[in-house]
Structure formats: C-alpha cells, structure tokens
C-alpha cells in the first residue's frame, strides 16, 4: 500500500492511492451536500405523501390531497367552457342576422375566429384567407357557393368533394383530355373566357373569341351561366372577375379546360363544434366585409 501524503495547497491528506500520477484527497463530504441531500429527500417524501406516488400491485398510493390529473384537466376544461358560455351560448342560439347586429358578440367572433381560422384553415387558405393557387381567396367577396353566412357554414360543415356523405360536389370536366371538345374549340373557349374578365388578349386570341363564344354557350353556360357569372348551386366560379382559383393566364385556363378541376375542401362536421362552425362562417364573412 502506498502511503498517504499531505497536499501542500489544501493541507489535506491524500487517500494514499495513485493512478498514473492522479491522487485523491481524503476530504470529508461537505456538510452542504449532505444538507441538500436530506432536504431534497424530505421534499420527495413529502410529495409522495401528498400525491399519487407508489405502485401497489394493481393500484397505487393515492396521496393525501386526492390529486388526479385526469379529474383536474376535465374540470379545467369544463370551467373554461362555462366561462366562455356567457357568449358562446348566445352564438349557439341566435340567428346569423342577430349575431351580426350585436357588436359585442361580433367582437368575440373576431377574437376567436382569428385563431380558429389560423389553426384549422390557414394551411390552405392563408392566415388572412387570401388563398393561393388551387385554394380560393375567401377575402375577395367572389363566392363559389355563396357568401351568406348560411352558405359558408354549410360549405364548412360538409366540405367540397370531401369524404362526407352530403358533401358539396364541384365537377369541372376535362373537356380536352376526355375528347368532349377538339383542340381548336378548347383554345377558342379559353380565349373567350379570358376576354370575359377584360384581360389583354393577343391578336391570335382575339381572333378566336367569336368561335369561343359559341363553344361556351353550348358547353359551359349550363354551369357557369350564360354570361359566365358562375352559379352558386353548382359551385361554378364567376369567370368574369379578377379572382381565379387556378389562375387566369392562358396556360392556367387552358389547363382548367383541358384537364378539368376538382378542388378538395375537407368537411369539418365532427371536428369542429356546431358553434365553432357558426362562428367561423361569420368570421369568414368578415374577411371580405372588412376590405370593402
């Protein structure tokens, strides 16, 4: 056994062991370590007495406070709902017109609708509802299925081309791909459609417009209306305004007519409460209202 030596810096003895030059001092465990060990252990024991802690076969010690995280969270959710009920119950009962006429209720609609929309709808429609390619702009006031709160609420409830049984169905056929129209006819009607919204056309396009007008009357007017103003019953968009789902340039319109379009909007019934759907319908209404 090696001899213990004294460390000149601390004045402590070493343990007498040495490993490749490393030695250890025989310093006793500092009091403060023992104190904190005792203090934290006492805290742990106290906590075990008060809270659910140790398993006992099929059950466990419940703790003196009778604390149960499931009960607590259920109660908290109930309390929060009860607190909100002061206004949510009125939203649930009142008609859309009554709510819209009540500024206090509309403040709640705006407050809550903003986050509800951002959390559920913004992935597709954007945080401000302005949409993007393939996803309609909800702030434009140009509606596929109608802009009344009732119509919007119904769209949210059942969705469009969704998996819900009573989904709204929007079918824009693939006129080119399925051979309903010849290539020439497709090009002609594309030019005509573009003329409806007053876009600048090239000369070639200009020349096709009259032929396109005939193709339109025969094939498209049934859904998009004789003047191309769209039809809310079928979800057919207004082709005369500046708002496009898929784009109003020649290539995009050509793609729409050639390949058809079926947008998918999920149904929210069962995922959002009827009150939330009602609230969102009103909120979506304010998106375009605010800009006018």
């Amino acid at each position, binding site marked *: *056994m090696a001899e213990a030596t004294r*460390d000149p*810096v*601390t004045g402590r003895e*070493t*343990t007498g*062991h*040495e*490993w*490749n*030059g*490393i*030695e*250890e*001092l*025989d*310093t*006793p*465990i*500092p009091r403060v*370590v023992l104190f*904190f*060990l005792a203090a*934290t*252990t006492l*805290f*742990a024991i106290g*906590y*075990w007495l008060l*809270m*659910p*802690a*140790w*398993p006992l076969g099929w059950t*466990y*010690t419940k703790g003196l406070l009778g*604390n*149960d*995280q499931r009960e607590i*969270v259920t109660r908290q959710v109930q309390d*929060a709902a009860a*607190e*909100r009920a002061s*206004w949510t119950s009125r939203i649930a009962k009142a008609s859309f017109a009554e709510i819209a006429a009540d500024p206090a209720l509309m*403040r*709640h609609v705006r*407050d*809550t609708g*903003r*986050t*509800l*929309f*951002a*959390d559920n709808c*913004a992935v597709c429609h954007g*945080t401000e509802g302005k949409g993007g390619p393939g996803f309609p702009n909800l702030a434009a006031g140009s509606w596929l299925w109608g802009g009344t709160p009732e119509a919007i609420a119904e769209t949210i409830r059942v969705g469009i081309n969704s998996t819900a049984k009573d989904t709204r169905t929007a079918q824009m056929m693939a006129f080119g791909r399925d051979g309903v129209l010849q290539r020439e006819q497709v090009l002609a009607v594309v030019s005509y459609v573009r003329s409806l919204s007053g876009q600048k056309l090239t000369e070639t396009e200009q020349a096709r417009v009259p032929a396109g007008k005939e193709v339109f009357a025969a094939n498209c007017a049934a859904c998009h209306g004789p003047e191309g103003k769209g039809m809310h019953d079928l979800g057919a968009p207004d082709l005369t305004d500046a708002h496009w789902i898929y784009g109003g340039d020649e290539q995009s319109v050509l793609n729409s007519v050639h390949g058809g379009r079926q947008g998918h909007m999920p149904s929210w019934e069962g995922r959002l409460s009827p009150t939330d759907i009602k609230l969102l319908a009103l909120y979506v209404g304010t998106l375009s209202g605010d800009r006018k």
Partner: protein
Amino acid sequence: MIATLTVAERQSAIALSMLVAFFGLIMMIAGSGDVLGVHGVIVLLFGLGFLGLVMSKYFEPEPPQERLTRYYDDPTKVGIVLSLGWAVVGMFFGVWVAALLAWPDLTLDAGWASFGRIRPVHTSGVIFGFGGNALIATSFHVLQRTTRARLPDQVTPWFVLIGYNLFCVIAASGYLMGVTQSKEYAEPEWYADLWLVVVWVTYFLLYLRTLQRRKEPHIYVANWYYMAFILVVAVLHIVNNLAVPISFGSAKSYSLFSGVQDAMTQWWYGHNAVAFFLTAGFLGMLYYYLPKRAGRPIFSYRLSIISFWGITFMYMWAGSHHLHYTALPQWVQTLGMTFSVVLLVPSWASAGNALATLNGAWDKVRDDATLRFMMVAAVFYGLSTFEGSFMAIRAVNSLSHYTDWTVGHVHAGALGWVAMITFGSLYALVPWMWKVERIYSPKLVEVHFWLALSGTIIYVFAMWNSGIIQGLMWRTYNDSGTLAFSFIESVVAMRPYYIARTVGGSLFLLGAIVAAYNVWMTIRMARLRGVTETGGTDEPVLPGAGAALQPGE
C-alpha cells in the same frame, strides 16, 4: 498499424472481415429490392475493404516482443481522428437543420434532405459518431493508464472501434434513405441494433478482461463511470430495441411495445442515454483528464463515491419526466419528478468536485485553454443539471414541455458539457498519443475555446428566449376566454431566434473544424519529426520494479 498485429491476430482479423463481408452478402441477397439490400452492399464493401487492408500487410514481419511492455494506443489514435471527423459531419448537419427551421426551402426539394431525415443524421452523428468515438478512444487510454495493464489483445479493440463505426455508418445512411424506428436516439432498425449488441458486449468484456489483469490494487473512479456507461447502455439498447422484423428481407420492424408502455420504455431509454452515454461516460473522461492536466489531486474521494452511486441510482427513475401530463399514470410521473429533484445533489456534487479539484491550479485555467475547456464543461454540467431538475418539476414542465426550452437545455448539456469536456480531453490526449510536447498550435486552441463558448451561449440564450415565448404564447387567453395566438403565429415569432441559433451553431461548427485542423497538423508534425520517446506525463510512473506494466496477450 496492421504490422503491429501478430500473425495469429492478422488471421483472426481476416476471419472477422470475411464474416462481416459474408453477412453483407446475405443482407444484399435477402434484402434485394429493399433498403436492407443497399445496406448489405455497404456491409459487404466494408468487410472486403478491411480484408484487403489486412491482406496487403499480411506478410510483414511479426512485431517485436518488446511491444508488450508498452500500452496499445493505435485504436485510441484512430478513434480520436474518427471522433473529430464525425464532429465536423454531425455539426454540419446540425447547422443545416437549424437553418431549415429559419429557411424551409433549404431542403433542396430532395427526399433525403428533408428535415425528418437529416435531423437524426445530426443527432446520431454528434452523439454516437463524435461522442461515442471519443468515449471509446479515451476509455482505452484511461483504462490502460489507470490499471497499468495493456489491453489483453490487439484485435478486440479494433473490432469494437471499427464495428461501432460500421453501426454509425449504417445508421446515418439509413436515415437518408428513410429507414427509422421512430424512437428518438434509437432510430436504427433491427439489423443495425443486433450488430451493435455484438459490438457492445465485446466492448464490455474487453473492459472486464483488462480490469481483471490490472496491476493497481484499486479501481480508479474514471473506470467506474466508463463501466457504468458501457454496461447500462447495453441494457438500455437491448430492451428498447426489442422488435420483430416484418421479414428477414426487410429493413422494417415493429416494436414489441405499444401505446404508453412504448412511450415509457422509450423515455426510460432516452433519459438514461442522457445519463449513461452523455453523462457517465464523459464524467469518466473528466475524472482522468482534468486532474491530470491541472496536476492536482481529486478534491474528495468520498464525494466521488456518493456522486457516482447517487447518479447511477437516481437517473434510473427519472425517465418519466419526459412524459409529464400525458396518458402515463400520474404516479409514474411523480416518481420521475421527485427522483429528478434529488438527482440534482449528486450532479452538483460531481461538478463541484471537479471545480474544487482546480483549487491551486486556477492560474493554469487562466493560461491554458485546454484546461479551461474542462473547467467550462464542469460549469455547464452544473448548469444543465440544475435546469434539468427544475424542468422536471411538473408545474415548470407544463410551460417548458414541447418548446425550444428543452432544446436549449439539451444544448447547454451537449455543447457546454459533452463537447467541451471532449475537446479539452482530446487536446490533452493528442500530444501524449503522438508523443510530441505540445499541440501544433495552442493559439488555435484558444481561438476554438472562444468560438465554442460564444457559440454555446448564443445558442442557449436564443433557445431559452424562444422556448419561453413559445410556451407563453401557447397558454395566453384573450378576453373571450379562447387562445390568443394561433400555432402559426408562434412559429413566426420564433424566426429571429432560429436565425440566432444558426449563427451560434455555425460558430461552434467552425470551432470543431479548427480543432480537426489543429489535431491533423499535430499528427503531421509528429510524422515529420519521427517518434521521439518523450511521452510527457502520460507513461506510467515507475517507482520500482514492482510497478511495471502488465503486458498483453
């Protein structure tokens, strides 16, 4: 290096390489059309490569008998180089994932470069590649020096080191191809896991065999920690990875656990991976290189003992603090929380023991960046364990959980503690291993120190801020009694912090590159000079004939 193997050892190396190549071939055939087949090709090439390497030196003369009177350090040297290589790769991927969160378009529109794939390349690259190689390399060194026994043979350490790196390569390449078990820090699939079991058990046995042959009557603390690291990681790895492959020709498997049991097993593993991989192993490093570099005795032997047993006992219970307020029964959460609180005491005792050891050497800490790395590591170790125990309290966790605060905590531990102690130890070790009196450029060590420290601080502060803002945004209500912020608003609010984090991470990466360069130049310096026989303070002190080294074989 192959020339240092005896002919018999060369033969077993050839046999092992052939065995690996053979398994690669089987995987390639059984898994053709699956990622398993691609991994088969990698394993096959790996085996053939080593076969060729050994064959090329097969007819070299036998090494002289005199080698047995010296320690066997070649695996340590290679381990150091591998560790630094993985550090640069792993941290590069880290900076990339950090940048992705601020600039999502940086995924290059390629599947392999998507967030979900390169994130585990980063975590495995730094933890297993950088950390693991450093642990294996230093453990061989510390083990021999503190037992005065040579490693028992010259093949096993290579098998452990190279086999372990094969695992790392399979893991990282698998992630890029979309292979994952979806268990954090245990992503590799069943075949990689099985291979690691073989490697790891061999590692443990190697450790025991060397210890058994020790010439020192007592086992030094560092070895307790290294052993706890090896043993517990084996247990954790085996249990958490129990799974049934859907077929032997497929990379995919299903875990034996499901639901809340799966979650608990995973976080029992996850937290003890923190405890025994990222803490115990590196404490082993600290207990050797810090006193050695400072030239001071360990402050208190008794404190080492209670902290060792405190840490090993208490950590085992703490995993459930990762699952607060989940479907996990509340009593399990209580146990995780209370043991985490008690755990603070042995953790701080370890950190305190390290810092008190520096008493009488603070002038060296001031002048020597290598020692300063180790000192700062001990400070961050104390900081992150305090934070961890605090976050383990349920009420605090309800704010911090799922936020960047956790990420900030992780990196106070991973950058501040794990990486700093590793760099400090490697800077001490490299001149000893290559037998030069000092590192190529102490100035660059100084530069690295400040890069690492500022990078860590920027990173951790950015994540504390973003984490707490996130946590608060998620729980703020408006007058209507509904949530005031949407999730996407909290994401937008994080952006400045994500940019800051990318900057901090880049500084840290730059430091690692400086370290790799410095070590590389040191090796070159040693090569150019030829080996001088001054091993510094690294060779065993030989007070008498009785204290000679226990030879190998």
